[in-house]
């Protein structure tokens, strides 16, 4: 702890530095204010209007009508369930697999850079590309069906992977997990490298096995990273758009719609329901915020209290 004298010098210094502080803050404030905060505010206002687009047309204030419309829309409900399904399946699985890969890479001494690159390849490939690729692979006449039918003889006809709601969503979650493993690997690898070696040495003396070490030393040490990944990936899962748009386009009959694709559809539906789309996005934001708060409640990292 710094002494009283230095604290007061610091305060005085800060006051003198107001101009410097502003020059550091302003670029960020202007950028965010103009291009992020303002559009969000505008969206919020739009969500209470029957937002009429069209050249020089006026919009009517409708109160909570857009929000009510979202809650009574069966497709919005279906899209929400689909999004939750995607989140609940992809988030834990990609974290578990990513952590597993990270632990393995952390243990080996050679080729670790090569493995890191190979596992990271899907992450640095754009969503459009991998989604097109998976659509091509899951196609009725695609590679997967060829293996199942003609190589492994597990199916007698082509499996219509993308033709029904849960099958198509499962295919998309496989893509989500496959693409996410690399990101989790990097994040967890970073966390693993920060675990103090002495703790492992102490544990070896205590006779703890590999699993015990993982359970009692690694896991508690990377709790903060787990929370970080959980929150970031949950936000990401609720923002899923491209894979659904490319692979199914919400077809058949909106069965595979997720919240963002449904919002997009409404925004650009024939009459452009901007108000509806705006209220849907705020409902989603509220939901994500709720989930994030819950996660922080349940997994509070002990070491984080120092700030």
């Amino acid at each position: 702890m710094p002494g009283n004298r230095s604290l007061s010098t610091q305060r005085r210094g800060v006051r003198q530095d107001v101009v410097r502080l502003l020059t550091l803050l302003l670029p960020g404030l202007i950028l965010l204010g103009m291009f992020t905060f303002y559009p969000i505010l505008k969206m919020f206002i739009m969500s209470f209007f029957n937002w009429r687009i069209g050249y020089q047309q006026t919009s009517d204030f409708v109160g909570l009508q857009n929000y009510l419309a979202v809650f009574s829309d069966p497709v919005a409900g279906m899209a929400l369930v689909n999004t939750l399904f995607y989140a609940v399946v992809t988030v834990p699985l990609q974290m578990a697999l990513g952590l597993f890969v990270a632990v393995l890479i952390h243990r080996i001494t050679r080729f670790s850079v090569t493995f890191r690159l190979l596992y990271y390849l899907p992450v640095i490939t754009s969503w459009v590309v991998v989604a097109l690729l998976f659509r091509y692979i899951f196609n009725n006449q695609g590679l997967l069906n060829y293996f199942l039918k003609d190589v492994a003889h597990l199916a007698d006809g082509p499996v219509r992977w993308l033709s029904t709601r849960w099958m198509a969503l499962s295919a998309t979650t496989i893509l989500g997990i496959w693409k996410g493993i690399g990101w989790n690997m990097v994040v967890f690898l970073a966390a693993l490298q920060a675990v103090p070696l002495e703790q492992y040495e102490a544990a070896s003396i205590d006779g703890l096995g590999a699993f015990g070490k993982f359970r009692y030393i690694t896991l508690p040490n990377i709790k903060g990273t787990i929370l970080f990944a959980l929150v970031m990936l949950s936000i990401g899962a609720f923002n899923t758009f491209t894979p659904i748009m490319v692979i199914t386009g919400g077809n058949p009959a909106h069965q595979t719609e997720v919240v963002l694709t449904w919002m997009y559809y409404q925004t650009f539906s024939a009459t452009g329901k901007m108000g509806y789309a705006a209220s849907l996005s705020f409902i989603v934001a509220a939901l994500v915020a709720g989930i994030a708060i819950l996660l922080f409640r349940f997994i509070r990292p002990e070491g984080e209290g120092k700030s």
Partner: protein
Amino acid sequence: MNRNMLKPLAIVLVLLLVGLTAACSTVTPTAAPTATPVPSEPVTIQFWHNYDAGAGQIDVLKTLIAEFETANPDIKVNQVYLEWSALKNNVIAGATTGMLPDVLRGDIGFVPQFQSLNVLYEMSSLSDYATVAATVMEAPNSSARMGDKFYGIAANTNTKILFYNKAMFTAAGLTVPKTQDEMWTDALKLTGSGKIGFVEAWTGVWNVGQYIWSNGGDVLAPDNSTATGYINSPVAVATIQKLADLYKAGALSGPSMDPGAAGDTDGWKAGTYAMEIDGPWRPSLLASSGIDLGAVQMPAGSAGSIGVLGGEDFMMFKTSDAKHQEAAWKFIKFMVDEKAQVDMAKVGQMPVNKAAMTNADALAAMPLLPVFAEALKTAKARPVTPKWGDMENIIATKVAEAITGQKAVQKALDEAATEIDALIAAK
């Protein structure tokens, strides 16, 4: 931590600088957006379209624009390709802000929709509109009419006929179907061992309307006042039921019913699909695939062979100033003239220009032109009403639910009728 931590930043910086110089050297000339034109400089008009690159139409368009620019040195045309839905979305997004093109060539169905956004320029107010309109066929041009005013001019027209894979028909010992019932039976017979009898790319009225109409039904009342008793009539239900049965038997497929199904062009190329009711672009899309394609009139239902009228219109926008509107209209006149229409016919766009319809070059390039001209005589336009886009989306969703077996056909179509009527009732 004893490693020099500035090193990564230095690497990033160097990479960024290298990238920046590499990028700048090529970007700078194009990055500058066209500023507001100075009177002495040529007028640049923005032209949005969805001509098909796969069929070579964009190359033809570029040649045509070059010819137009040579003839009119004071006008530059900046052509922008946007896919069908992107074209629509960009106009919707631009409608709020006035960020719109000077000329757009898009689906005839866009006219009522864009007109409801209050963005279209009334082209019948142009002094020589009637003269130009007289050179194009009346039926396709009626798609641009709202009331007694015209908000566009026909760019090209089409309707759909039956295309079939000749080799597959020969192998199955089948002859070309004469009626729709025969067509469905043949689809079943042609299905099996990886082959699929029939493909429909979507489930909107663009796709299923022709079967309902050909059997004496309709989707909306003639005055567009209600859907009840039309989209859920016994004729419509029976027609969609046939499609549902075919889908269940695996004899009907398409990406909007089964996202894993090959798209129609992919499937044709792979020799998967045996039949499709499709438009004049189909042969040019399969030009290099080696598929022997047969084409005849769409087989008749109980009330005849009534196809759907398709095509595109040129539209102009209120947001352009007088100078740009004048240039835009010049360009449109060039595009509906015989020369441009014949050139586009060579790459699969069916002309609307009367002279081009009988032009020897066009006929040579598009041997199916007479077949389409015949089909056009009975082709039916989709309802022209401002909310048609939303209505067709409802029908597409409900028909897809019915065909894929998520709902009973009657129930799905009843729901469609209720939803459409609610839409009509809303102000």
